[in-house]
């Protein structure tokens, strides 16, 4: 995109806000978000990211995107990932390795079941959420 004016920026924000909110609503497209801070990468987040792409391909799943983010703050259980798929609560998994990836794809993404022993609680409340303005 070329340089924006104020109006362009506002229009872009409004458009993207809808996208980003979709993550928390029904009927969303699925997303797998990998924590790729230095801590995550050091404990194998890159391998996990690659493995997700491979596994999703293998099962022919095309409506789930795989994206990266920074440190979720849960450094003792890196690599951490968040799985957001329709009709399921948003879940953070920790200590994810190559083997766990396939389990998550098969059980969580395809089977709508949570995966034992890897669920981690969200670290904090979000000031940006809709009710954050209280």
């Amino acid at each position: 995109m070329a340089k924006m004016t104020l109006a362009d920026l506002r229009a872009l924000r409004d458009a993207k806000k809808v996208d980003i909110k979709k993550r928390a609503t029904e009927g969303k497209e699925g997303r797998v978000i990998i924590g790729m801070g230095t801590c995550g990468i050091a404990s194998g987040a890159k391998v996990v990211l690659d493995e997700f792409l491979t596994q999703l391909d293998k099962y022919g799943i095309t409506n789930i995107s795989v994206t990266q983010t920074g440190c979720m703050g849960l450094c003792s259980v890196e690599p951490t990932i968040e799985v957001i798929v329709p009709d399921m609560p948003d879940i953070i998994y920790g200590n994810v390795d190559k083997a766990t990836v396939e389990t998550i794809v098969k059980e969580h993404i395809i089977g709508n079941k949570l995966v034992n022993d890897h669920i981690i609680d969200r670290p904090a409340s979000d000031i940006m959420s809709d009710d954050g303005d209280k």
Partner: protein
Amino acid sequence: MAIRNYILVCGGTGCESSHSDEIYQNLLAEAEAQGVGDEVQVVKTGCFGFCEQGPIVKILPEDSFYVQVKPQDAKELISEHIIKGRQVERLLYNIDTLKQKTAKVDDIEFYKKQYRIVLRNCGFIDPENIDEYIARSGYEALEKVLFDMSPDDVIAELKIAGLRGRGGAGFPTWMKWNFTKMQQNEIKYVACNADEGDPGAYMDRSTLEGDPHTVIEGMTICGKTIGAHQGFIYIRAEYPLAIHRLEVAMAQAREYGLLGKDILGSGFDFDIEIRLGAGAFVCGEETALLQSIEGHRGTPQPRPPFPAVKGLWQKPTCLNNVETWANVPVIITRGGAWFNKIGTKDSPGTKVFALTGKVKNSGLVEVPMGTTLREIIYDIGGGIIGGKKFKAVQTGGPSGGMISAENLDTPIDFGGLSAIGSMMGSGSMIVMNEDDCIVDVAKFYLNFSVDESCGKCAPCRIGGRSLLNILEKFTSGNGTHEDIDKIKAISHAMQVGSLCALGQTAPNPLLSSLKWYADEYEAHIVDKKCPAGKCKKLITYVIDPDKCIGCTACARKCPVGAISGEVKKKHTIDASICIKCGACMASCKFDAISVH
């Protein structure tokens, strides 16, 4: 039948030891027995970090948080919550007690003591995609500052917010901006301190890796406010990922016209350059940092003149820490009054800590100021690893002090930490347990300061080395009580005579530990013993003849052949040969070897 409820049972070690597995099994059995086996899924999770209240069971999607659950509660949880859809009140965490504590932040979720302002986007957005930052109200603050607010409005908002610099000293940010703004000069600069050199600190690195745009936006707002058109980010070369993300973010911002000439058509020009540091701790000191940006050797300079008056190339320069910058856009969008309600009167807002050491859940933690150390270490950090006893926590890195168990309930803010002989510093928090020797830790920090001293002034250069020599004496059993008086005298000279805060604060870990752990120093000086078994010259390894079965494992492991004994006979260690490596102790399966 589709699954409609998920029951999460904490499977962390703390909860596991209080029968969480039995709870898990009972829930499975009850769900089956009550005919909802295919409508709920029971799962075991990692630790929730709230072990004090364990075992914990959480039910989704309602997000009901049950604490101190017993195996026999499973029946009621299924029949009431799952079948009738009513929460089991008596097991719900008592929100009221917590509400009082956190009443200032009404939207905080009760069991989550963390509250994210600085890290609001970390772990949520893709840091390499500017659109995601924009979607989360990114660059909205800049819009306001460019089109709706005067520079004085911005400073007034920061003043209402009460934001204090997060780089360590806690200087009011509005005042620094105002000083720089008041200078009459065509050319001014904005600078970001991302040097982050204390051992155990990685808050700023993570912020830049996870949300680089917030720092860019904060600096641009400052540029507009004080009348500067050029910014510098000084970051250590050891942070390649943070540097990469910053470069990507700056390129995207330029492409969108959010950096560069005529930002958003407002007529305001501002751009940022990255300057790499070589990783010297002293280069985090503001005057040394500015020297280094100019291409000189990074040594501290006398102040005044302060950087706000004469900074980079003798021009007025506004320097803030990464975390300070990250707070700015939020304050502008949400308002200073909103920010001021969070935290304490002394220090509004939150603080990011890098929690490390002997704590179960090490990690990045952002909490409202005023949270206690106990809450951070036990509730968020999950307590001490391996069920050991807490000994001390060091905040403020090599400039801070050791805090003992007596002071764990101190609310943390700038004033609170100073009052107990430590300081906020940049936010490293290193937890020690009974296995750590206080004298050894003090020596570690002092050693760091001595290594990193630039050597420009005598009190720091000579004083630091002399203190270190005294600590060497203590840890090798040659200390005397006169040495304690010497420590006090030398420390005083360093505090008043050093040019920069590195030298002024270097004695802090030593002084604070002398105050709170006098016993442990006494043991080293008088008894010539190290109670934690860390100081090699003061310990001996001995084999307990009652426990030794003569398996020979230790003798084979000992690298210097100090252990003798025949098969199935008692073994002994020759102390004159032993190098105290501890290999034997680790190898004995019968717990027969101990340190004295």
